[in-house]
């Protein structure tokens, strides 16, 4: 078991402490609430507890059993076996935040490399050690922008094609900031031209948030938008799917001030939505406004290279109420996973996976578009996701697909009530041509039914 003491040891220890019995350690606890009887199931042994969760797990259907075309912010990619193999090293996962650098160089070097990899991928200068997920990274971008303008600019403009959950979380966080508000135009027609956002940008605007590829999978060059946003003195944040950056021009080249993103696509299992990985990159001049941890390279007294947490004076345990973020525990192990994933795939591998996603998605889109009653809505380049207009409501269609072993796309009306009969289909390297063809076969059946 996990509490090692024998009765004899407990007795010896109590004696050393100078009390008679264990209960004597708890006399500060008000008697009327002391030692409550907890109404919980009796303890299981390890083999029983594992059996119990095994039964729960097998009550699910998973993307391993089904052909998965569901994305909308979380993707079923292949994770090379070496990733988890390394994550399982107790040295990594049972360590704490590297506050003692002399005995934490493993974690620190890994984060430093993570920062470097993500900076390279996004085309930015500075990356922090992670946020909880893509949504909270967006929120932190908002908070950063708010404080960058010392609270004087209060308008946050979120693209209607920003992942709706990112917008929700941004709203939750912005609530606490005096007078700030999140504006999302065109929610009823979210496929509108991203340049439409610009009409809202003014000298009250702190931040404009767009997504790349956007929630609907579309890819836009945001250079012109960046220019206009900067003209208004505001900041531009671009939320990315980092895997797509294996292929696509990085937002750093568009003039993004902040690049945030959901790192799950970089080797993390779907895991029912978490733990995921919030990416946060920015320009060097904004580094002191960045929340979360930063690892910097330095030297010890013998000139050996080493790594430390740096600029810690920004953090909440030192700045206390003046801190702009309270983040403390982050997603360190997930950042490590992403670093290992990117190291394993490297330059060629990431490009290859991104291209596989691209080609397979385009193959699927073309085939689906040929099916009577289905129409692919594409008026711009897309990466690995696209919208399909369906002849019947998406939830009905998805039940039908499920019967055939297919996890269908995201029902857009859940987030955009106007978008009825619109399914967001995601395709990754995990979808074989056979799976795509099967999907089309089943859609064809629906079309004929």
């Amino acid at each position, binding site marked *: 078991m996990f509490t090692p003491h024998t009765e004899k040891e407990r007795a010896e*220890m109590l004696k*050393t402490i100078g*009390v008679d019995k264990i209960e004597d350690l*708890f006399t*500060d*606890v*008000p008697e009327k609430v*002391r030692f409550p*009887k*907890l109404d*919980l199931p*009796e303890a299981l042994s*390890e083999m029983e*507890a594992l059996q119990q*969760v095994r*039964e729960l797990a*097998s009550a699910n*259907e*998973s*993307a391993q059993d089904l052909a998965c075309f569901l994305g909308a912010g979380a993707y079923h990619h292949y994770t*090379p076996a070496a990733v988890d193999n390394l994550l399982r090293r*107790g*040295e*990594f*996962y*049972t360590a704490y*935040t*590297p506050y003692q*650098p002399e005995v*934490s160089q*493993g974690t620190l*070097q890994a984060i430093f490399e993570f920062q470097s990899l993500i*900076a390279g991928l996004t085309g930015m200068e500075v*990356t922090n050690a992670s946020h*909880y997920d*893509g949504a909270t990274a967006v929120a932190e971008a908002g908070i950063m922008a708010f404080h960058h303008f010392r609270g004087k600019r209060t308008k946050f403009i979120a693209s209607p094609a920003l992942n709706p959950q990112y917008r929700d*979380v941004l709203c*939750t*966080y912005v609530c606490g900031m005096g007078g700030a508000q999140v504006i999302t135009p065109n929610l009823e027609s979210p496929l509108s031209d991203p340049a439409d956002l610009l009409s809202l940008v003014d000298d009250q605007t702190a931040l404009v948030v767009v997504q790349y590829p956007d929630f609907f999978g579309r890819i836009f060059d945001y250079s012109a938008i960046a220019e206009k946003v900067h003209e208004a003195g505001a900041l531009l944040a671009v939320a990315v799917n980092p895997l797509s950056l294996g*292929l696509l021009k990085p937002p*750093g080249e568009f003039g993004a001030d902040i690049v945030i993103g959901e790192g799950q696509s970089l080797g993390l299992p779907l895991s029912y*939505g*978490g733990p995921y990985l919030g990416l946060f990159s920015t320009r060097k001049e904004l580094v002191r406004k960045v929340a979360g941890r930063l690892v910097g390279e*330095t030297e010890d*007294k013998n000139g*050996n290279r080493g790594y*430390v947490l*740096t600029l810690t004076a920004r953090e*909440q345990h030192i700045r206390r*109420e003046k801190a702009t973020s309270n*983040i403390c*525990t982050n997603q*360190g192990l997930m950042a490590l996973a992403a670093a290992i994933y990117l*190291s394993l*795939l*490297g330059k060629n591998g990431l490009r290859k996976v991104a*291209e596989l996603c691209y080609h*397979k998605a385009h193959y699927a889109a073309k085939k689906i578009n040929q099916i009577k009653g289905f129409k692919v809505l594409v008026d711009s380049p897309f990466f690995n996701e696209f919208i399909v207009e369906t002849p019947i409501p998406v939830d009905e269609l998805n*039940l039908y697909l499920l019967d055939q072993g297919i996890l269908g796309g995201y029902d857009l009306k859940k987030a955009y009530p106007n978008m009825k009969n619109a399914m967001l289909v995601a395709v990754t390297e995990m979808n074989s*041509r056979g799976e795509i063809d099967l999907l089309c076969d089943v859609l064809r059946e629906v079309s004929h039914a």
Partner: protein
Amino acid sequence: MREPTIYEMSSPGRQGVRYPDPDVPTTPLPEGLVRETLPLPELSELDVVRHYTNISKKNYSIDSGFYPLGSCTMKYNPKVNEEAARLPGFAFTHPLQPTETIQGNLALMFELQQWLAEISGFDAISLQPAAGAQGEFSGVMTIRAYHLHRGDSQRKKMLIPDSAHGTNPATASMCGFETVAIPTDEKGNVDLAALKAACDDTLAGIMLTNPNTLGLFEQGIIEAIEIVHQAGGLVYGDGANLNALLGIARPGDLGIDVMHFNLHKTFSTPHGGGGPGSGPIGVKQHLAPFIPGPVVTVVEEGSQDVPPLFGFTMPEHSIGRVKSFFGNFAMMVRAYVYISMHGPDGLRTISENAVLNANYVRALVNGVYHVPYDRICMHEFVAEGHWNEAPEVSALDIAKRLIDYNFHPPTNYFPLIVHEALMIEPTETESKQTLDRFADALLKIAEEAKNEPALLKDAPHNTPVGRLNEVKAAKDLILCSCDLPYG
């Protein structure tokens, strides 16, 4: 050994993991949108495995030694949890799957909600927050939403004892509150007189850490809570120290209105070198409509033969989402298994032994180390790392010298109210033998401090690097490998 970075190891053209060629006709790439360079390293699988294996060895970890880091609850993380969280039926489920296909996950979350409520004495649980700090944020936002919903928009003042956790002031301020510090009395409790004086109709609430960061149970907690409640304020409980209270006292029973849990402390999910955590919150009934959502509920009652159908519900006046999806699910699986393996008696044993271990170490070193608030502590205690006889030696030196004895240092310089603080939390999973060796080391170091202070000042001696130049790090600000084009 100095380990190169992955960039230094990179060789142009080297291939890591291979992927298949497309099995579909290809489509021209989008013009003008394709990147020209991709500054990623090029390594073989062996390069990568060896690199991360070797740097991992430079870490101290629970699996390799005693980690008495105060306030962090570095207990042993049972290995079965790792198996459980990796079961394909969990690991490969997509958060947007139809709820009918995911009843195993929902049942687990529902039961975990129930269990956490029972353990803590709360009425409703939101599993969504990703970490303790986000739990705090969610809890304090819940308090804010409660007051606003009642039209009490003037309640802007959040009290924070100076023995509270470090994140508390930042959290309060993120939620738009003004913070007022409440001092600690000579016994290590919140000063009730000061507390009373700070209460008025602008009071939003108080953020209490109990046991507080001195490791002490607030002796006046019930009175303190009554004072706040009488002023119309709510009590936020920082649950980071819950490992002292399992089966000992339920925060809800003490009168606390809302609290976060750290599944990665109390319920043994691994700390991961900094995360992920999981920071659910529990609230009393009056706050239930405000918590982050969605939460798991029974959508259709079950019967003897048919299990209930679970689904998601958004609390009526929810503060909204605090993150995507439903929280750090894989951490919930681990906590679920952990609670299952303990049951009511096992949970109490955890806290009993956590408290026993802290008091045992305290008893062994007390006197040689000054323990400023000297009474029975809970799961941790705070000593001073300083002696007049060894003026140049600081808590930091003691911490670093412990590394030479193969122990992880305790938390130091926290809480701020103790001079040269050493905050020691042994946790319940450590054996008497380990505690004895640790106390021995502390006592030897106390000797060394007086007789051979250089041993401490130069420590640690056998680590991959010595003490690092933090000033240089902040000045040079090298945050990325210099081998990168953007750097």
